[in-house]
């Protein structure tokens, strides 16, 4: 095999693998990417019911209702909009009223959301960044909530 043929074989093999990888990435991108919206953005961007998405905001004070069999419902607010979230399962350690959370699930209609996972911030200084940004955008950011860290 000459040097040229050898090089061609290698390039062909490389292109094949890269092509397969690119195909996989594109397929995976189409089906497995989830957008993040805050409650206000759901109305602003006219998100259709049935859309799979991540919802972020603060858990509204006094809105948490615990039902039977670990079902729970609460209102997520970003100051400009509110969405009621229903969820069945264990809530994260740092889930509290007034705290920022991110829920992933399906939008049922403009005001209600069925979550299949709920994430909270890691600790009192780390707000999920999406939530912090959404709150800043709505003008509801209070810096002292961010206390501790400079």
């Amino acid at each position: 095999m000459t040097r040229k043929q050898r090089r061609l074989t290698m390039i062909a093999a490389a292109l094949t693998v890269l092509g397969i990888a690119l195909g996989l990435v594109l397929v995976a991108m189409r089906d497995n990417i989830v957008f993040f919206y805050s409650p206000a953005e759901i109305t602003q961007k006219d998100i259709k019911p049935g859309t799979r998405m991540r919802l972020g905001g603060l858990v509204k004070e006094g809105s948490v209702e615990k039902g039977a069999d670990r079902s729970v419902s609460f209102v997520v607010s970003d100051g400009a909009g509110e969405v009621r979230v229903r969820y069945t399962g264990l809530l994260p350690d740092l889930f509290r009223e007034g705290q920022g959370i991110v829920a992933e699930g399906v939008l049922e209609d403009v005001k209600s959301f069925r979550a299949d996972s709920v994430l909270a911030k890691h600790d009192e200084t780390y707000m999920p960044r999406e939530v912090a940004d959404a709150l800043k955008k709505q003008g509801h950011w209070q810096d002292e909530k961010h206390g501790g860290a400079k």
Partner: protein
Amino acid sequence: MIVETGHYALVLAFALCLVQMVVPLWGSLTGDRTLMAVAAPVSLMQFALVALSFAALTYAYLVSDFSVLNVIENSHSQKPLIYKISGVWGNHEGSMLLWVLTLSLFGALVALRAKRMPEDLAATALSIQSWVLGAFLLFILLTSNPFARVGAPPMEGRDLNPLLQDPGLAIHPPLLYLGYVGLSITFSFAAAALIHGRIDAQWARWVRPWTLIAWMFLTVGISMGSYWAYYTLGWGGFWFWDPVENASLMPWLAATALLHSALVMEKRDALKIWTILLAILAFSLSLLGAFLVRSGVLTSVHSFANDPQRGVFILAILVFFIGGSLSLFAFRVQSLKQGGIFAPISREGALVFNNLLLTTSCATVFVGTLYPLALEAVTGDKISVGPPFFNLTFAPLFVPLFLAIPIGQLLAWKRGDILGAVQRLAFAVGMAVVAGLILAFARGEPVLSVLFAGLAVYVIVGAFIETWGRMTAGGYSPALMWRRAIGLPLSQWGAAIAHAGAGVTLFGLAATGWGVERIVGMKPGDNVNLGPYTVTLEDVERRKGPNYVETAAHMTIREGGVVVGKLDPSRKFYAHRSMTTTEAGLRTIELGQVHIVIPEQNSDGSLDVRLYWKPYVTLIWIGSIFMFLGGGVSLADRRLRIGYARRPRQPKGQPAPAPAE
């Protein structure tokens, strides 16, 4: 005073970097041996100064010196001793100090070996290392001074983030940094080789041990981080495809590819351009990881306080080194001559295949990690790319890789016999089929777990076919086999052990499909079935620790009425931070683990308990230890010992080492 000494030492180390960045480099370009001779001692001094600085910060933590801002923010006088020490790097400033300590450590290690290398290459590499070190020292001095004092010291500190108060903090970051930062030395060597245009098999021989060391520590560093997340985050998972994890996985994939391509370069003088490029890319990905984690682009336990100024600074470092080295590469690449020829079916061909798959999978991780960031920067849309993306892109690339590992090990250099190799693997394939059948019978669904476990057995057995063949080449008498086994090159054993380790990890991953998860409300005295076991909640106890209060559940695991273990998962409440952490109860039974987490107590006094039975799960981490040991055995090989090579230019001095090969 000691604190100021630490700060001053850091400034001095930076000053030495300025000298080192110019003098040895100039000397190597002009052939001035006096100037080149500066490199080694200066590198040692840099290390001494940075170590002094690190010791000073550790001292401030040990005596709880609350006039130092860093100590106030991350320590507490009642914190246990081990967390006072490991807390030094449990924050942004301290972790950067650990980063530069590791950078200077590698510089010093190379300096100690410098006499066994051509002096211009060593001097240039040490000079480049000082460029990197200098950049990060400047970063610390300008944006992240760990020694800053406060005017009015408080009586008490704010304590370390409770999530980090774990032995994991003492182990995971130092190991990971040895890996991450260890890649800087391969980068420095690559840049030095490009500067001098000396890129040959000999270069690969000097560089490969360093890559191997970095790779070994990166492997266990990632693995220990994964185990820490597994037992402390309370989700029962060990890998989340979190961008921070990906930031460490990408350099690992590149370093793994580099190890293999450097082998081709060393043995066959081929793939030279590619190897140099990989050496640059591997460290570039380390820098990218540092940027992602430290700049506040991502939020996670790893990104301590965010400060945009720091992000911009690290980005500048990133651009300078990646851009600089790639320009140098582009400038030199034409002058490189291609080396040995090989057929596509050969050991080289198999290693090229390995590189192709590893770098492609690295690229897919790169896309999945950075695409959301890029999209947000461009359109403002926020998306998340989750585990399904990575599972779908990663697994199809790794299956052919695992299939190829044993075949590649059996192919000859230059031109291989693939049919012969496959025939020799019949035993491994047979074992895989037998294991698959047994597992399908014993454990059943999911099919994918059975298939992957079978693949894992094939890799483990296949890894030793070559060594077994050589051991038994002279017959099956135990004494002869033993003699032949110890006569084999250690690097061959090392490769076999490391490849088997990859198979062991794969087995552990495959077995996750057989896991059982249950979430139940329990009161004292309740039983719950979990796979083959019955778990009983005995009672719930509240107890006080040094800086927390704890709610612990005492649980007993029984198998057929016989007690096989007890565990007490707990929740700790840290008053100083008003924060709760989950301590999973873990009990290892054979190779599997029972993993129990107790989230908050319900109003009716019952506990919601999350229980997992994870068969063979420990193999995931045991595999990484095998990879580490394999690397270590390989490193002990006489032929590969660091710097153990001929010096083409300098006849005098050291006793002549034995000729290689």
